[in-house]
């Protein structure tokens, strides 16, 4: 027909004929649809061109289109003009004050065809003079008008799909960055709660978003005491996580200089004020504990008051002070108490007390205190709290980060007792491990619970031997058994890479139908026979931790969360047992 010029408005909503990017795998179907739409548009254009060319045998070389990019500024009045244009227009009919029209005239454009769909200008076709040197006929205009009406929706579809692809790529990038941020933040939280001479610590941490502003920390002080810190940054998500990281570092730094909880808070407050964004602050509670005597000094910067369960009663440790990052010169009074043998202390963030139910009711302090009153151990308190909160807020989004830390001082004479041993990774040694663990915990567990633990230990040890250490007899598996009056914990370590998480959950219907191998029961048994099963890493060792409460009432099967840094065993496995 003619030489053609293609004009591309700069506005993202009015881009013409851009090349589609290679789609992500998940969007191939959309891309196919887009290609179909593009083919339809091309077919229409081709038909139009063919009809025009048929009137005069034009050599192929003459029909090649010269593509010229005419950039149109989004504020150019031409765009508004074309949006309501009735169809193809001579260049002379366009507003002469438009910079784009000036540029098009310079490049010999004679005819402009707006592509409008749903009242929106999505592109335009700019045409030079006809090769016949005749003017555009009524038939030509009709054909161009038809082309525009067919091509405009297809073009719009392509534009929308390209925009979607771009958004998807951007989302993926953000998710990846957040995942990295989450991994970095997890490094701030204790990966394992240490042995504390007769004290048992348990913790739960669940951010409302990928990263959060809650934190807790345990710091061994030079004088032998232990500093326990819990904190909560206002807001959540990335801003809170950044402030959390800063506060964490400041607290560690301050703890190096002072063992006084009030002084630590005072120092952190002064250092935080110049750094923290407006309208953000940090609540923080610091306890410094003498593990031998239970003497506990504490100071509070606006954090929730801790609960203490003592002899069936529930108490609160009273201490108040300004949150960190709000007011220079704030002082933090130091208080003192003694945590007695058998006491259970709960430190928590407002993510639990201020969580709402579907009915709009708040979980509140009353329910929290009730949970403390019913607790039989720190682990039990964490487990029950998470379960109660999940039940209470079923169907409701988690509103804020949630942190729970429990300190349970063992009964006098009931200090935690630990026995460790190793065995070579030889087939059959799992029974040896099972028998030795059974002997170590003899008398602590009722028979049914002991039998369940034995099977779980045997399965875990077998997995460590066969898969973790790949049956290499030169590699030992390590076994650590911890006994308290409340629970038995067995940790079995190997040099493997941990459990695979994509294996099928064993289903006997599928197995009998031949759709699953008959094997694959090992970790299913472990999960279902213990009160808690989780995996973690320590250096180059992969460890599975099994927890069994000593009394039936505290054991309601696997629990939903665990010590931070450890991962509950979903169904695994590379274990082919």
């Amino acid at each position, binding site marked *: 027909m003619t030489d053609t010029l293609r004009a591309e408005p700069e506005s993202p909503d009015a881009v013409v004929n851009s090349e589609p990017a290679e789609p992500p795998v998940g969007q191939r179907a959309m891309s196919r649809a887009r290609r179909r739409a593009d083919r339809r548009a091309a077919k229409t254009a081709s038909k139009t061109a063919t009809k025009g060319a048929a009137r005069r045998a034009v050599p192929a070389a003459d029909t090649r289109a010269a593509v010229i990019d005419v950039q149109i500024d989004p504020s150019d009045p031409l765009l508004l003009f074309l949006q309501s244009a009735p169809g193809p227009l001579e260049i002379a009919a366009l507003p002469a004050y438009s910079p784009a029209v000036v540029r098009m005239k310079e490049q010999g454009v004679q005819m402009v065809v707006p592509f409008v769909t749903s009242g929106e200008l999505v592109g335009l076709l700019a045409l030079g003079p006809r090769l016949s040197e005749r003017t555009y006929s009524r038939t030509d205009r009709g054909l161009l008008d038809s082309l525009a009406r067919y091509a405009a929706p297809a073009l719009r579809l392509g534009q929308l799909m390209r925009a979607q692809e771009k958004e998807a790529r951007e989302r993926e990038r953000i998710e990846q960055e957040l995942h990295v941020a989450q991994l970095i933040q997890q490094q701030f939280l204790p990966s394992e709660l240490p042995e504390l001479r007769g004290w048992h610590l348990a913790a739960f941490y669940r951010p409302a978003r990928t990263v959060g502003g809650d934190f807790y920390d345990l710091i061994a002080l030079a004088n032998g005491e232990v500093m326990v810190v819990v904190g909560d940054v206002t807001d959540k998500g990335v801003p809170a996580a950044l402030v959390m990281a800063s506060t964490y570092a400041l607290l560690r730094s301050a703890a190096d200089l002072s063992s006084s909880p009030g002084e630590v808070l005072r120092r952190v407050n002064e250092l935080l004020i110049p750094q923290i964004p407006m309208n953000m602050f940090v609540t923080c509670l610091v306890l410094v504990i003498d593990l031998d005597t239970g003497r506990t000094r504490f100071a509070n910067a606006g954090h929730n008051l801790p609960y203490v369960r003592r002899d069936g009663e529930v108490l609160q440790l009273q201490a108040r002070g300004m949150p960190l990052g709000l007011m220079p010169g704030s002082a933090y009074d130091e208080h003192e108490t003694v945590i007695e043998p058998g006491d259970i202390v709960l430190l928590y963030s407002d993510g639990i007390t201020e969580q709402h139910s579907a009915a709009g009711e708040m979980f509140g302090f009353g329910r929290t205190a009730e949970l403390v009153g019913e607790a039989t151990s720190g682990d039990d308190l964490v487990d029950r709290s998470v379960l109660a909160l999940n039940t209470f807020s079923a169907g409701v989004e988690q509103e804020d980060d949630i942190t729970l830390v429990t300190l349970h001082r063992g009964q006098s004479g009931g200090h935690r007792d630990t026995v460790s041993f190793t065995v070579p990774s030889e*087939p059959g040694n*799992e*029974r040896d491990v099972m028998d030795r663990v059974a002997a170590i915990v003899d008398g602590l567990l009722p028979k*049914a619970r002991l*039998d*369940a633990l034995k*099977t779980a230990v*045997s*399965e875990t040890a*077998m997995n460590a031997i066969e898969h973790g250490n790949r049956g290499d007899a030169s590699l030992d598996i390590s076994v650590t058994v911890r006994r308290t009056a409340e629970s038995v914990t067995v940790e079995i370590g190997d040099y493997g890479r941990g459990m695979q998480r994509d294996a099928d959950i*064993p289903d*006997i*219907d599928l*197995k*009998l139908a*031949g759709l699953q*191998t*008959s*094997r*694959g*029961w*090992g970790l*299913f*048994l472990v999960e*279902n*026979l213990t009160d808690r099963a989780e995996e973690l890493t320590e250096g180059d060792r992969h460890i599975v931790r099994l927890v069994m409460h000593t009394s039936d009432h505290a054991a309601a099967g696997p629990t939903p969360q665990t010590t931070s840094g450890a991962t509950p065993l979903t169904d695994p496995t590379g*274990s082919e*047992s």
Partner: protein
Amino acid sequence: MSLQFALGTRGVVVVIHLLGRIDREAGGVLDQSYTAAAASSASIIELDFGQVEYINSTGIALIVGLLAKARAKKRPLRAAGLTAHYRHIFEITRLSDFIEIVEPIEPVEDVELEQAAH
């Protein structure tokens, strides 16, 4: 070998008495016991776990395999003598949906066939 067996019959029931451990080493003996039991004219096959001291996940897998064979031949399978612990495992794995669990067996009238002692 970790497992031994002996066969007995009681009316329409052929009983596989198992003794020892059902683990990775027990596959051959378990298969052998089933083949012998299936050859009998008894309509029901009963696994007697009364003398079994240990079953691990591999053992569970072997029992699932045995169950699949029995179902293919439409031979009802049942289990006797399970301890409370292994009964619990049969329940959580849902083996008990397919294998009837019966109380400790009555005395077997007629013990026959070989004792596959290993």
